[in-house]
C-alpha cells in the first residue's frame, strides 16, 4: 500500500492513513491570476462517503475536474490506490476507476437510455435494468434520454456512473435541481452504494443532505482545505461558520 495522507483536524499536518483510496496532495491550479486550488491536500477513505463543501468559488468543481482529468493541475500529485493519475487524460482516469457525474447533467440526450448505459459498460438488458432499479428509475430502456425529466436525467447519470467498473464514485451536486422526493431517494441510493462497498466523493450545497449521509466532510475555502472531520464536528466549527456566513 502506498503512503497515504490525511489532514489532522487539530494540527493541520498530514497524517498517514492506510485505508485511503484517493490521495490529493499539494495540488495547485490557477486560471490567469485566480488561484482556484491553492496547495490543497486531502485523502478519501475507502468505502466512505466523503463530502466536499465550501462557499462558491472555494474550488470544489475545479478539484473534481482535476481528479477526473478534465483540468490539468499546475502542481501536485493525485493518486488512486497504487497508481498516480496526475495529468492523465480523462478517459484514462475513467479507465483507472474514477466514475463521475456533473453539476449540470450530461446524459446523451439524443440516445436511448440503453445506449447511455451501453457507453458506460457493455451490459445485458438485465444488468441495465437492475442498474436503473438501484437508482429507482423505472423507465423503458428504449426511451430517449432527452425525454426524461431533469431529476430523472440525473438519476440516469448516476446509474451510468455506478454501472461502470469503478473504485471511486465522484458526484457533483447530485441534488441540484431535483425535487425533494428524488433528493430523499438519492440519500437511500448513496447509503445503499456504500453498503455495497462503493466509495463516494460528493460535492453538495445541501447541508442537511451532507450532514445526513457523510462519514467525513472536507471544508474548502479559497482553494484550500479549511477543515476536515465528522459532520457533527464540522457543523459546529467556528471557522467553518465564518467561512460560510462571514465574521
Amino acid at each position, binding site marked *: 500500500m502506498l503512503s497515504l495522507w490525511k489532514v489532522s483536524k487539530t494540527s493541520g499536518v498530514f497524517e498517514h492513513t492506510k485505508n485511503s483510496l484517493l490521495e490529493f496532495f499539494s495540488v495547485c491550479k490557477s486560471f490567469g491570476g485566480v488561484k482556484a486550488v491553492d496547495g490543497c491536500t486531502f485523502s478519501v477513505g475507502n468505502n466512505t462517503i466523503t463530502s466536499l463543501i465550501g462557499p462558491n468559488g472555494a474550488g470544489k468543481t475545479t478539484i473534481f475536474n482535476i481528479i477526473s482529468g*478534465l483540468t490539468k493541475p499546475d502542481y501536485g500529485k493525485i493518486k488512486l490506490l497504487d497508481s498516480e493519475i496526475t495529468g492523465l487524460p480523462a*478517459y484514462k482516469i475513467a479507465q483507472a476507476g474514477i466514475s463521475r457525474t*456533473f453539476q449540470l447533467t450530461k*446524459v*446523451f440526450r*439524443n440516445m436511448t437510455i440503453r*445506449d447511455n448505459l451501453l457507453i*458506460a459498460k457493455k451490459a445485458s438488458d438485465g444488468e441495465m435494468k437492475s442498474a436503473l432499479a438501484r437508482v429507482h428509475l423505472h423507465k423503458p430502456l428504449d426511451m430517449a434520454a432527452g425525454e426524461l425529466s431533469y431529476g430523472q436525467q440525473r438519476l440516469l447519470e448516476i446509474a*451510468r456512473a455506478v454501472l461502470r467498473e469503478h473504485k471511486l464514485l465522484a458526484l457533483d451536486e447530485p441534488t441540484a435541481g431535483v425535487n425533494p422526493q428524488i433528493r430523499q431517494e438519492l440519500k437511500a441510493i448513496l447509503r445503499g452504494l456504500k453498503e455495497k462497498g462503493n466509495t463516494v466523493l460528493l460535492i453538495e450545497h445541501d447541508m442537511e443532505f451532507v450532514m445526513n449521509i457523510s462519514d467525513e466532510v472536507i471544508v474548502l475555502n479559497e482553494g484550500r482545505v479549511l477543515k476536515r472531520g465528522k459532520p457533527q464536528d464540522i457543523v459546529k466549527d467556528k471557522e467553518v461558520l465564518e467561512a460560510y456566513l462571514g465574521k
Partner: protein
Amino acid sequence: MIHEFFIQDFTWFFIYLIIVLSFNLAFGFTGMVNLGHMVSVGIGAYTSALLTLNGVPWYIALLAAGIIACVIGTIIAAITVRLKGDYFQIVTLGLIFIAIAVSRNWISLTRGALGLPGVPDIIRSNFYYMLFTMVLSLMALWFVYWLTNSETGKIFQAIRDDETATAILGKNTYFYKVLSLAISTFLAGIAGGLMVHQINFVDPSIFDLEQFIIILFMLIVGGLASIKGSILGVFLLFALIDLLRFLVVRPELIGPVRQMALLLILLLVLIYRPKGIFGKVDI
C-alpha cells in the same frame, strides 16, 4: 430497357448517396461539421483519374481513391479534431481553398484549371455502370447502418451529444473522432473515384463550395443521423432537379429557379421540421 436519362440520373443518385452518407457519418453521427468534405471527394476523383490515365487498373485506382482520401483525411483529422466547434469548421472550410489552390497550381500533376480529360470508363455500358454504383452505394449503406448500430457507432453518437461525458466514461474521444473522419473520407474518396469515371473529367471546380452546399442541402433536408434521411434527401434533390427540368420552359431560367426552389424547400423544412424530415438530432 431504362431510358438513358434515368440511367444517368440514377448513377448520379447512387454516387451522391455515398457522399451524403459519408458526410452524415461525420456530421450527423459524430457531430463534426467537416465543411471540407468535398475535398475528400475531389482527392478521390483526382487520384482515380491520375492512376487510370497512367494505365493503373480501375479497381486499384478506385481503391486508391478511397485510401489516399482517407490517409490525407486522417492526417488532417489527427491535427484538427482537438479544435472545438466553430474552430474545427473554420479550419475545414479553409481546406477547400487550399485544395482549389493546389489543384490549380500544381500544373505538372493536375494540369491546373484545364483539368484532366479523357479519364477512362470503368465499364463501357452506362447501364452496367449504374448497377456498379448501385452495388457500391448499397455496400456503403449497409456498412454505415452496421457501423452506426455497433458499439463504435454508439460512441460516435455519444461524442456528438457530449464529448466530455463520453471521455468521462472511459472512451478515447480523440481516437474515435479521427476514426469517424477516416471512414467518412474513405467513403467520400470512393465516391469521388466513381464520379470521375462517370464524367471522364476532373478539374478544380470539384472542390467548389457550391458542390458542398448541395450535399449540405441533401443532408439537412433528409435529417442528421438518419440513413433513411440521407436516402430521402438525395432523392428529393434529384426529383426536384428533374421536375424543374420539365416544368421550366426557358432553359436560361432553370438554374436560378432551381436555386430558389432549393432555398424555399430548405426554409420550409427548417421551419416545420427543424431536425430535417427523418432527422434524429438538432442541426
